[in-house]
């Protein structure tokens, strides 16, 4: 939160409309999310001219009040109202906290044209019994009648609520920096605040020493101020702290916060009498304990930077001071710490201790040593002025800070190329001036020096382009398209393969789903039990604690969800990654069928999504990617599938690529059929697509049926038929399955329709009969089969 009253101390904004200025700031890159006006309108300083008791009341008064332009009549109930005092008058139209609007009216028959206010009624004090009894606020005698009362009180402020996450511009984290940002945008100079003070003879070096024992503290400066008088802060300090969301405590503590808001440099004040004569900055020891200002005992680690008095911890550096050296009402002498610590350490410590404070947040972003010095002087100045302090001469200091200047050399050409603009050298110069970047031009190149406070700017031309671009205004950029060679974009093979499978699934009537890859451990283990499940360290919840190696449990969940919403027929698929073992990942396809695959109830057509439908879908998918005749189905031993209704899918008779079947009733009682297939394993080389002529000659069809024991599979018979069928046999179609007492209960009859044809000629009955007889012989001899005669 930025207080514009604060900013106005460093830059002249008298002629600026602050709403409009906020828009300019936003356009230049720092998003002002809200402009908040804390001012109440229609409040003026008035002088009570006359005050008499109300004839119809025992406590009301009728007053005439001079408000500059005129004298008005007001009925007032406060016990402390009297003739001759200066007061705050709310005129008709003023809206007080609680949406209470002042209107003209009559009180017990007497006209009243406003209200004389107490501070709590204006929201400037808490509404306590004490404040209530105090009555109306009596202003100082010299308060100018007719002046805007909020301005007189110094209370009216405009606050900018900045979105601090979406930019890195360091200038918006403190008021002087923000003044620079505004100065850049509207082209105005910034004046730094007064920081001069007298020093007494006594030197800090006489009885104090500093020892920095860790490289995580690069800069440490201290001054000592004595003879302090602890009291309340002046109003302007209190008001600004409140505007920025900080609670005023006392002048000493408030000054440290005030300077932090000015320069972005957090300060820490130690009570010198409690501290002793030495400061040692070092890393904490593991398990070292300290009680912080909030009276909590904290346990430290060796990654925390601490300030010690040589023995005990007196502050967790950059995060919070310890109770043992805090400033209290009796503090006479303080040691001011203005230092730079390693940003990462501070961030980690603050996070671990859950102590992210205004100070730690600023350390996290990094600090500029020039302001570390300035903040120290500014604090001395304020302590001298507002806490009667006397500043000891000299500093104790430690300085190991890298001070190399950031220099960027660039040509206007590169800026134009990055932004897509046609700026001239002159345009660039103008922007650099606005930015307050020093520069020189040599051989057509700019050499700029980045001001130290711009910690966010790196030594590269892109950062300069960004600064120039944002000032030029991104809204002024043209819409152009890259000029590049024409080419067609293409899917990488693996993606295209998955897309093809996915589209095929949709054309086969399956709806696509999106389910989570993170599942509970039980689900992760439903299939692929020979693979190791990858567990998530520190999971957010147990139902999202493992990476799935099978997608089937997720599919079952989708069926459950939709079933509970009244759906009866569900056919779904998903293509996704699964994960296993030592962080392997594999692309999988999962399908689940529940209820009817096709149905038309009134026609009595109900084709259930069963094993054979799923097998058909599988074949259509595999055919589509060119695997026709290369896959087979064998009995599966997947434990989560029905042992009698399940199959493994094989490619080239040797590689198991997936499985399908009915889900085991011990897992799900519903009649659900599932498939899971490794897409990576079926993404194999296949023959390119070629034209295959159909026979132009008539074909000969012949039927036959075999009685076989039930243990013999249809596939075995088909294979035998094919073996004996020679090239003339072009199609086999199973058209009947019969089981009945008359052929023996252990037997079944399978009837086939065989098609014989040739691409070259019309076949003769004789040659087909020979082949047909060979088929019968082959099946009967190789299998326990008998030709069934009608």
């Amino acid at each position, binding site marked *: 939160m930025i207080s514009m009253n604060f900013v106005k101390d460093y830059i002249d904004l008298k002629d600026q409309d602050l709403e409009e200025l906020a828009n300019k700031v936003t356009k230049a890159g720092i998003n002002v999310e809200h402009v908040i006006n804390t001012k109440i309108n229609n409040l003026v300083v008035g002088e009570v001219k006359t005050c008499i008791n109300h004839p119809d009341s025992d406590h009301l008064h009728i007053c005439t009040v001079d408000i500059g332009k005129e004298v008005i009549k007001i009925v007032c109930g406060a016990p402390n109202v009297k003739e001759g005092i200066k007061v705050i008058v709310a005129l008709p139209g003023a809206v007080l906290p609680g949406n209470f609007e002042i209107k003209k009216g009559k009180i017990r028959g007497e006209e009243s044209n406003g209200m004389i206010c107490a501070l709590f009624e204006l929201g400037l004090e808490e509404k306590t019994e004490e404040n209530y009894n105090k009555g109306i606020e009596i202003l100082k005698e010299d308060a100018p009648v007719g002046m805007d009362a909020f301005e007189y009180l110094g209370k009216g402020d405009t606050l900018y609520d900045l979105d601090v996450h979406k930019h890195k511009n360091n200038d918006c984290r403190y008021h002087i920096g923000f003044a620079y940002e505004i100065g850049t945008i509207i082209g105005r100079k910034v004046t730094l605040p007064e920081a001069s003070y007298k020093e007494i003879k006594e030197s800090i070096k006489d009885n104090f020493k500093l020892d920095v024992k860790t490289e995580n503290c690069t800069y440490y400066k201290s001054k000592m101020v004595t003879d302090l008088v602890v009291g309340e802060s002046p109003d302007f300090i209190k008001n600004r702290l409140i505007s920025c969301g900080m609670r005023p405590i006392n002048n000493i503590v408030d000054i440290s916060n005030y300077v932090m808001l000015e320069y972005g440099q957090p300060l820490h004040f130690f009570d010198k009498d409690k501290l002793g004569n030495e400061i040692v900055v070092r890393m904490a020891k593991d398990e070292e304990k300290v009680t912080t200002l909030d009276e909590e005992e904290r346990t430290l680690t060796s990654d925390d930077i601490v300030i010690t008095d040589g023995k005990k911890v007196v502050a967790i550096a950059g995060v919070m001071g310890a109770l043992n050296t805090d400033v209290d009402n009796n503090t006479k002498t303080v040691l001011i710490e203005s230092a730079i610590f390693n940003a990462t350490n501070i961030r980690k410590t603050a996070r671990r201790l859950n102590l992210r404070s205004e100070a730690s947040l600023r350390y996290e972003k990094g600090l500029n040593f020039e302001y570390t010095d300035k903040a120290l002087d500014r604090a001395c100045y304020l302590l001298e002025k507002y806490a009667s302090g006397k500043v000891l001469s000299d500093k104790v200091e430690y300085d190991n800070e890298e001070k190399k200047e950031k220099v960027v050399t660039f040509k206007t050409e590169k800026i134009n190329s990055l932004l897509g603009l046609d700026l001239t050298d002159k345009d660039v110069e103008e922007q650099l001036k606005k930015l307050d970047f020093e520069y020189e031009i040599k051989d057509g190149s700019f050499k700029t020096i980045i001001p130290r406070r711009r910690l966010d700017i790196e030594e*590269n031309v892109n950062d300069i382009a*960004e600064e120039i671009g944002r000032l030029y205004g*991104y809204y002024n950029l043209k819409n152009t398209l890259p000029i590049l060679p024409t080419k067609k974009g*293409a*899917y990488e093979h693996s993606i295209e393969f998955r897309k093809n499978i996915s589209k095929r699934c949709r054309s086969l009537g399956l709806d696509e*789903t*999106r389910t989570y890859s993170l599942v509970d451990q039980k689900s992760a283990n439903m299939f692929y039990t020979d693979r190791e499940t990858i567990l998530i360290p520190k999971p957010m919840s147990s139902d999202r604690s493992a990476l799935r190696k099978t997608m089937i449990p997720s599919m079952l969940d989708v069926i459950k969800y939709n079933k509970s919403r009244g759906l009866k027929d569900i056919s779904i698929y998903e293509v996704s990654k699964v994960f296993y073992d030592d962080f392997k990942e594999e692309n999988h396809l999962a399908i689940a069928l529940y209820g009817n695959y096709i149905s038309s109830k009134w026609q009595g057509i109900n084709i259930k999504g069963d094993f054979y439908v799923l097998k058909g879908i599988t074949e259509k998918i595999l055919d589509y990617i060119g695997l026709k005749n290369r896959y087979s189905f064998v009995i599966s031993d997947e434990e989560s599938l029905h042992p009698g209704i399940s199959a493994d899918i094989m490619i080239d008779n040797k590689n198991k690529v997936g499985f399908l079947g009915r889900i085991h009733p011990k897992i799900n009682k519903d009649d659900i059929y599932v498939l899971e297939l490794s897409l990576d394993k079926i993404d194999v080389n296949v023959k390119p697509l070629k034209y295959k002529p159909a026979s132009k000659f008539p074909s000969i069809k012949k039927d036959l049926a075999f009685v076989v024991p039930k243990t013999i599979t249809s596939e075995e018979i088909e294979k035998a038929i094919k073996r004996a069928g020679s090239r003339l046999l072009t199609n086999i179609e199973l058209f009947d399955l019969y089981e009945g007492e008359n052929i023996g209960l252990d037997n079944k009859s399978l009837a086939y329709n065989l098609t014989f044809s040739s691409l070259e000629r019309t076949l003769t009955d004789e040659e087909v009969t020979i082949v047909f007889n060979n088929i019968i012989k082959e099946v009967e001899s190789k299998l326990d089969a008998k030709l069934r005669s009608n």
Partner: protein
Amino acid sequence: MNEKINALKKEIEEKLNEVKDINDLTEIKNTYLNKKGPVADLSNGLRDLSVDDKKTFGKALNDFKNDINSKIEELKNKFEEEELNKKLESEKIDISMPSMDIPVGSPAIVETIIEESEEFFIGMGYDILDGPEIELDKYNFEMLNLPKDHPARDAQDTYYLEGENLLLRSQTSPVQVRAMLKGEGKTPIRMLCPGKVYRREDINATHEQEFDQIEGLVIDKNISLSDLKGTIDAFVKYMYGENTETRFRPSYYPFTEPSVEIDMSCIYCDGSGCSMCKPKGWITICGAGMVHPNVLKMCGYDPEEWQGFAFGFGALRLAMLKYNMTDMRIIHENDLRETKNFDRKDVK
């Protein structure tokens, strides 16, 4: 002879006028036109005539026969037509009965938007690239200018899998890193990498733990921020209509410099503000910028010579805006009654 013909003609015509159905017609045909019937008798009678008479009466007789035959044929057609119409009438069905529900699958809602985006960028010459979901910290963060202690990592709340080196990718940017490494600092790049990413988030209407990003990268010698602006503007117009406007706002990402956030004009209101737009009239849809020189360098491209832009969309967000959805959780619910609506082509 003439009289005989005329008499027979009259007789047959009278009979034909009384015919009621195909059976009557068959009977007449059988009675008069068979080999021994009256017409045949007349033909036989020609034999006894003189050559001239034969000629005269032969023609008359032929005309008579043709006339009768065509009349019979005509009637036959008429009866057959009537018969067919009757049959067709009896076969009439109620076409208002429900159809057979032909199974056709629908894409997941978010897949619809991804495919549409891919279509646009493929047309602009972008390749669609793939990458692993379990990534190295190096590719997910370090080479994107996010060293180990970078504060921006805190915000991303990443799922680490093993120590601090292996993670579930929190963005699809590592696919870009891989593409640049493959390009070895020599090849221009135009790519899109849609895919799933993972974050430790509390799931609510606008936050998911698993969601799809659509990121793109273009690297060449003279690619500018204005090119990025034009590209995104064209995409937004393709996706949300020709009247949609875009604007850039300066922003910050570690992997781009300058960085921008891109807003599109609100598609739900006239710019006066509604529940969908923030700030008023604008909807943020994309984070983007010029690839940071450090990223180029780490990935093998000399920033003096090469430059380019990168952008990232949330696929879910694009979908929510396009289809007017307000809750992200819908995607993972997979309510098929809702996804079924996406079984259609969208209009442009």
